[in-house]
């Protein structure tokens, strides 16, 4: 009972609280980094250097009036933010933050669970998030959200094809769908998959930006054309759930990319004894550092690149990324056959 329910439950709550904290400070970090990029100061009023800004924001969103527009579909209007939020949170169940460690003399794994279809679980759960967006636009019964949700869902599903095809080539190299298994495969292969699958990494980065509706693919929220995007009619806590979901998804994308391509919780050069001094930094810290670098990259991109036009965005997804993903898959398969055949001949 303790092993089956209590410990997982504890881990889930810790991950949930950590995610929510990380999400709120992501917002502050984003505002700060963009401000510095543009030679501004960013939030400075609430606490020293705006350090308490996320708390103020959270409080404000909680006590704001929550409006359901008169023409909206009441139930679906409430269901949509929940449907957007839940998938973003439950993906963390399979993300390996670290290997097994001893806590109070009892072995504890630094991941909530390890299922043998982990990557498939990540792909399918994140797809469910699209429903939240479609339903939000439909239930609002207002023109801007409707248009924005159509655009957003078309964008999400277009890039999902390319991303999923790319993930297949990673699975091909690792030979397993378990995320812990993929990290351990990188340890055994003596190489991060960033170097074994550079094309796949580039595709996942581009696809990840598009899947999280981030600049330069933040089409669904193009303020100049669509006011607030699919959550124009939302206010108060229901708006906050969409907001949390968006940033939680960013963290999901960086964690998955870290796990698949940057060796997850492994330290740099995990097989070289000479770098053993790096073990001072615990494994979960390496994971967080790598994910953080990725998140910083997201913000950096947003501060640097202008937005794509919608037809350019669809063309990039369907006519550039998908052919590259298929070609990468085919080349990976051929190379894999040659490699395994050579190892077999030697043995």
């Amino acid at each position, binding site marked *: 009972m303790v*092993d089956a*329910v209590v410990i*997982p439950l504890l*881990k*889930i709550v810790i991950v*949930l609280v950590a995610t929510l904290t990380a999400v709120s400070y992501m917002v502050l970090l984003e505002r700060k980094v963009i401000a510095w990029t543009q030679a501004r100061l960013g939030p400075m009023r609430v606490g020293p250097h705006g350090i308490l800004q996320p708390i103020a924001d959270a409080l404000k969103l*909680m006590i704001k*009036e*929550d409006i359901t*527009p*008169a*023409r*909206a579909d009441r139930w679906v209007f*409430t269901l949509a*933010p929940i449907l957007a*939020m*839940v998938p973003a*949170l*439950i993906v*963390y*169940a*399979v993300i390996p933050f670290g290997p097994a460690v001893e806590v109070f003399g009892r072995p504890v794994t630094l991941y909530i*669970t*390890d299922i043998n279809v982990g990557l498939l*679980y990540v792909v399918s759960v994140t797809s469910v998030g699209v429903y939240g967006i479609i339903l939000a636009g*439909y239930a609002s*019964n*207002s*023109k*801007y*959200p*409707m*248009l924005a949700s*159509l655009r957003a869902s*078309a964008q999400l*599903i*277009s890039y999902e094809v390319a991303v999923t*095809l790319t993930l*297949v*080539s990673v*699975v*091909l190299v690792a*030979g397993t*769908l378990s995320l812990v298994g993929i990290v351990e495969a990188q340890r055994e292969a003596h190489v991060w998959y960033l170097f074994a699958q550079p094309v796949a990494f580039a595709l996942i980065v581009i696809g990840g930006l598009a899947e999280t509706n981030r600049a330069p693919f933040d089409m669904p929220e193009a303020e100049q054309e669509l006011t607030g995007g699919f959550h*124009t009619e939302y206010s*108060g*806590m229901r708006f906050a*759930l969409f907001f949390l979901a968006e940033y939680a998804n960013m963290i999901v994308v960086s964690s998955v990319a870290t796990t698949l391509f940057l060796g997850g919780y492994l330290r740099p050069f995990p097989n070289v004894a000479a770098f053993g001094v790096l073990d001072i930094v615990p494994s979960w810290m390496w994971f967080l550092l790598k994910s953080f670098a990725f998140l910083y990259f997201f913000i950096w991109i947003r501060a640097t690149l202008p937005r794509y036009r919608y*037809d350019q965005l*669809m*063309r990039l997804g*369907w*006519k550039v990324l998908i*052919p590259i993903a*298929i070609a990468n*898959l*085919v080349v990976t398969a051929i190379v*894999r*056959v040659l490699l*395994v055949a050579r190892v077999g001949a030697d043995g």
Partner: protein
Amino acid sequence: MPSPYVPIVLSILVAVGFAVATLLLTRLIHPRKYNQVKLEPYECGIEATSDARDRYSIRYYLVAMLFLIFDVETVFMFPWAVVFDQLLLFGLIEMFVFIGILVVGYYYAWQKGALEWV
């Protein structure tokens, strides 16, 4: 050894619980000063004249159908990729036939202009 799926069920429960609980809790504290104008759908200050659920571009349907085809095909590739090292040349040729058909369909859709967004 408990099933590895128990924690997933638990995290779904916790996530749904969190979302529902915050919505219910904030219901208790947020102000309610509604009026007719405030509850109108937002249209940059102009009164909404018609229902928003209007007809929209056929392109979206097309994208949805293409997505269905490609995504289902991709799901078939996952098990193949997992056991690839045991199949090797056999698996390679089998999958090349499969991907070949996919590419033919993709080429057809491209030629028909299904991938254009005008």
